């Protein structure tokens, strides 16, 4: 049986204000891309810091490649944190070279080209835009083809092209049996790259399933997003046949319901006084955000 890239048992890291993470247990095997989804403050970053050897959990145990020693894991592991810290006064090329030397691997000039930074590789990082710094950060993490890659909000600041590059890279890694752990709020990115998805709520992992399974669980449903003036009795919406979840939003409500003929008419009927109250209505096929809503009873965007 192949050795797990990562195995966490009951890891716990809570702060004085009660925020943080744990206890959480999870496993990441070869060729898996596990995405952790959760609203702001759900503990994604804290968990990723524990799983990437950066922070020590206060309880539980993490094993990297079957070994609990973080120092022995680091040569095979790379991390992208949310901060874009570089040595700004030197070139992107020199920064990349430093990471190659630190990891004791040969430089791969193709990395700069693939990340779209070949033209500016010789320029000081101080002149880079935020998106370019994020690309460089990811390129530096890919140096030496790490067996385990941990990414915190990797699509932050990336343009469409950068995002596609990252999707391609993660897809290739998966095919080559390398493991990736991603913490993000970006559901469309997760739907493109993940093989498994975990939902984090208040520092606890409330779901951990294959992506296909999660999406199938909302397969025959619809997400109805309503904006209206004034108060609406949400319990009336909940009583509509087929409705699974109703969540209040600042100016309306989000309804997740099994798709059927007459669903929308019934939902609108529950709102009542449409000509006076209804401002906007959107109906779409559900995605991961709706899976999250269905399983946790909370919206992913907080």
């Amino acid at each position, binding site marked *: 049986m192949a050795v797990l890239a990562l195995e966490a048992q009951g890891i716990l890291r809570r702060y004085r204000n009660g925020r943080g993470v744990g206890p959480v247990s999870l496993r990441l095997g070869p060729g898996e891309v596990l995405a952790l989804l959760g609203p702001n403050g759900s503990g994604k970053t804290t968990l990723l*810091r524990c799983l*990437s*050897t*950066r*922070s*020590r959990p206060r309880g539980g145990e993490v094993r990297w490649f079957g070994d609990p020693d973080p*120092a022995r894991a*680091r*040569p095979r*592991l*790379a*991390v992208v*944190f*949310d*901060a*874009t*810290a*570089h*040595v*700004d*006064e*030197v*070139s992107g*090329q*020199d*920064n990349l*070279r*430093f*990471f190659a*030397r*630190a*990891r*004791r691997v040969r*430089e791969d*000039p*193709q*990395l*700069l*080209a693939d990340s779209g*930074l*070949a*033209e500016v*590789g*010789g320029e*000081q990082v101080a002149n880079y835009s935020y998106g370019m710094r994020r690309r460089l950060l990811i390129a530096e993490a890919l140096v030496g083809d790490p067996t385990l890659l941990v990414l915190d909000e990797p699509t932050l600041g990336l343009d469409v092209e950068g995002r596609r590059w990252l999707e391609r890279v993660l897809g290739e890694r998966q095919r080559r049996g390398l493991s990736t752990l991603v913490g993000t709020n970006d559901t469309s990115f997760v739907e493109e790259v993940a093989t498994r998805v975990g939902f984090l709520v208040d520092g606890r992992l409330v779901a951990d399933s294959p992506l296909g399974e999660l999406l199938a669980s909302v397969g025959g449903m619809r997400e109805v997003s309503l904006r209206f003036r004034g108060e609406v009795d949400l319990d009336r919406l909940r009583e509509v046949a087929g409705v699974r979840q109703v969540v209040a939003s600042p100016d309306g409500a989000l309804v997740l319901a099994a798709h059927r003929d007459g669903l929308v008419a019934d939902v609108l009927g529950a709102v009542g006084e449409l000509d006076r109250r209804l401002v906007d209505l959107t109906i779409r096929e559900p995605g991961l955000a709706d899976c999250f809503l269905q399983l946790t009873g909370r919206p992913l965007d907080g």
Partner: protein
Amino acid sequence: MAERAAARPTGAFRLAGPRGLWGLELQASLRRRRALAIKLVFPLVLAVPLALTGAPQFFAAMLLTVLIAMVGTVGTGVSLTRARGAGWLDRLAVLPLGRWRVGLELFLAGWVVDCLQATLLILVLEAAQRPDPLTLFSTWLLSLATLAFSGALGLAVAALTDNPGEAMLVLAVVLAPMLFLSGLFTGVPASGPRYWIAQILPFSYLQNAFQLVLHGNPPYGSDPQFLLASAAFLLVGGIAAAALGRPLLHRGA
């Protein structure tokens, strides 16, 4: 495009020579030209009038020693807490680098620039005072050793604080008693605990060496003693910096 990315190391990178972190950090310091110019000039603002105006040797030597102590501690302490705030230390912490190596390399990069400052100051003293060459050399070496000790102190403070403001405050609280106990403000008693404390800190040696350079009569100290003290404090600074790598990187981890 790929060919361009594969270009050889840039000139400045080769100049910085070393292949690791300290080469990168040193190169960054040398490229911050405005900051570097200010760094190099500001000790002279104090040193030139002190060297040229015949200020009392004890007080002139005290001010020069305080200046060297501040250069070493503040530079390292502030730059490392700033690096932590930016997330750079987080990135270093997850690399497969020996912790002692990270501490030593970060310390070295700052120390080299500090040494440039001290060397300029010594050159001003040489031009203005024409001291004995061996005394000048031992004072220069002692300045570098004091910078190493102070740099390690700055690193220790950076390992205990979260931001540059806090680091400055803690440095002041730590450094002021050390300078006092070294006899900088009152002289060193001939015996007792303060005498012995002054012997294990570099500042009293440096003050005495500066007094010699300024043609004063320090209560103790000779060139061989200064050379020996330099070697000892260089070693202490280096070992302490290496040992502080782990606490520096793992603060809050």
